[in-house]
């Protein structure tokens, strides 16, 4: 198993992205290939979970689009991800904030985490 993990890290290298976790609001800029053309698109929303380890790790971003919830799952090793920006750090108590799905409007706000400990970042 270790051999597979070690091999994965070499053949599917993960680019450097800022640290983010559940509750953070991020913007993911990813490439879209339309025929021969390639363009960039941004998907921004709240990270509701990060799951898996190594090159198989994925994260789910949720946003409200015209009052309809839209979720997108990105593999962290995906070559289509151009960049990830952290817009806001959220203060949440769990690693997977699926309760957000049942909340709308004011209730779905997440308190911003303003204080970062001495060893944070």
């Amino acid at each position, binding site marked *: *198993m270790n*051999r597979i993990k070690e091999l994965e890290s070499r053949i599917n290298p993960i680019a450097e992205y800022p640290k983010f976790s559940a509750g953070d609001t991020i913007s993911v800029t990813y490439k879209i*290939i339309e025929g021969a053309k390639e363009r960039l698109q941004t998907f921004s929303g709240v990270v509701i979970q990060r799951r898996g380890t190594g090159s198989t790790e994925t994260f789910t971003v949720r946003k409200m689009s015209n009052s309809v919830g839209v979720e997108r799952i990105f593999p962290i090793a995906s*070559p289509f991800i151009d960049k990830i920006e952290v817009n806001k750090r959220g203060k949440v108590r769990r690693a997977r904030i699926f309760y957000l799905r049942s909340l709308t409007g004011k209730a779905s706000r997440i308190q911003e985490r303003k204080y970062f400990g001495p060893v944070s970042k």
Partner: protein
Amino acid sequence: MPGIIGKKIGMTSVYSAAGKNIPCTVIEAGPCVVTQVRTLEKDGYTAVQLAYGEKKEKNTSKPMQGHFKKAGTTPKRFIAEFHDFATEMNLGDVVTITELFTEGENVDVIGTSKGKGFQGVVKRHGFSGVGESTHGQHNRLRAPGSLGASSDPSRVFKGMRMAGRTGGNQRTLQNLEVLKVLADENLILVKGAIPGYNGSTVYIIK
């Protein structure tokens, strides 16, 4: 067919040039040593015997010790014959994956499937079972159903698919794409799954 002996390491996935995430199996293949060359004059057919995997000398029988000594190599665990190699093979030659396989070509993989013990017809032959789990149905959910007609023929036909030992048989998967060849580690990545446990012996055939 030219081929090589290897060991299944496990499964992972790679991203293709188009960005698709492709599931693949990692096989450690070779380097194999030529331990015997079968010729038309002597054996009636042509083939090359390859050996793979280290083995202790004390666990090797005297006749086999002599056999490996003749090829000028240490005792090996697995031996298999392949034929139609592109180049002339001599005793003691080392065969590696890079000589045989290139990325993008299709190969066959022979392995022994995982043994599953005594299994019913649903798992073993893909039967759909009898009826439903509700509506008065009692205990026939995964039963095989009828085995045939009654007084004529008064017997069950040979080859009737029934429950029994499942898996643990040699299976060949054809036309698996070679996604990557890592020469210095003797690793080859083929698309999809292959039979057997991690660590089981497989034959990769061109």
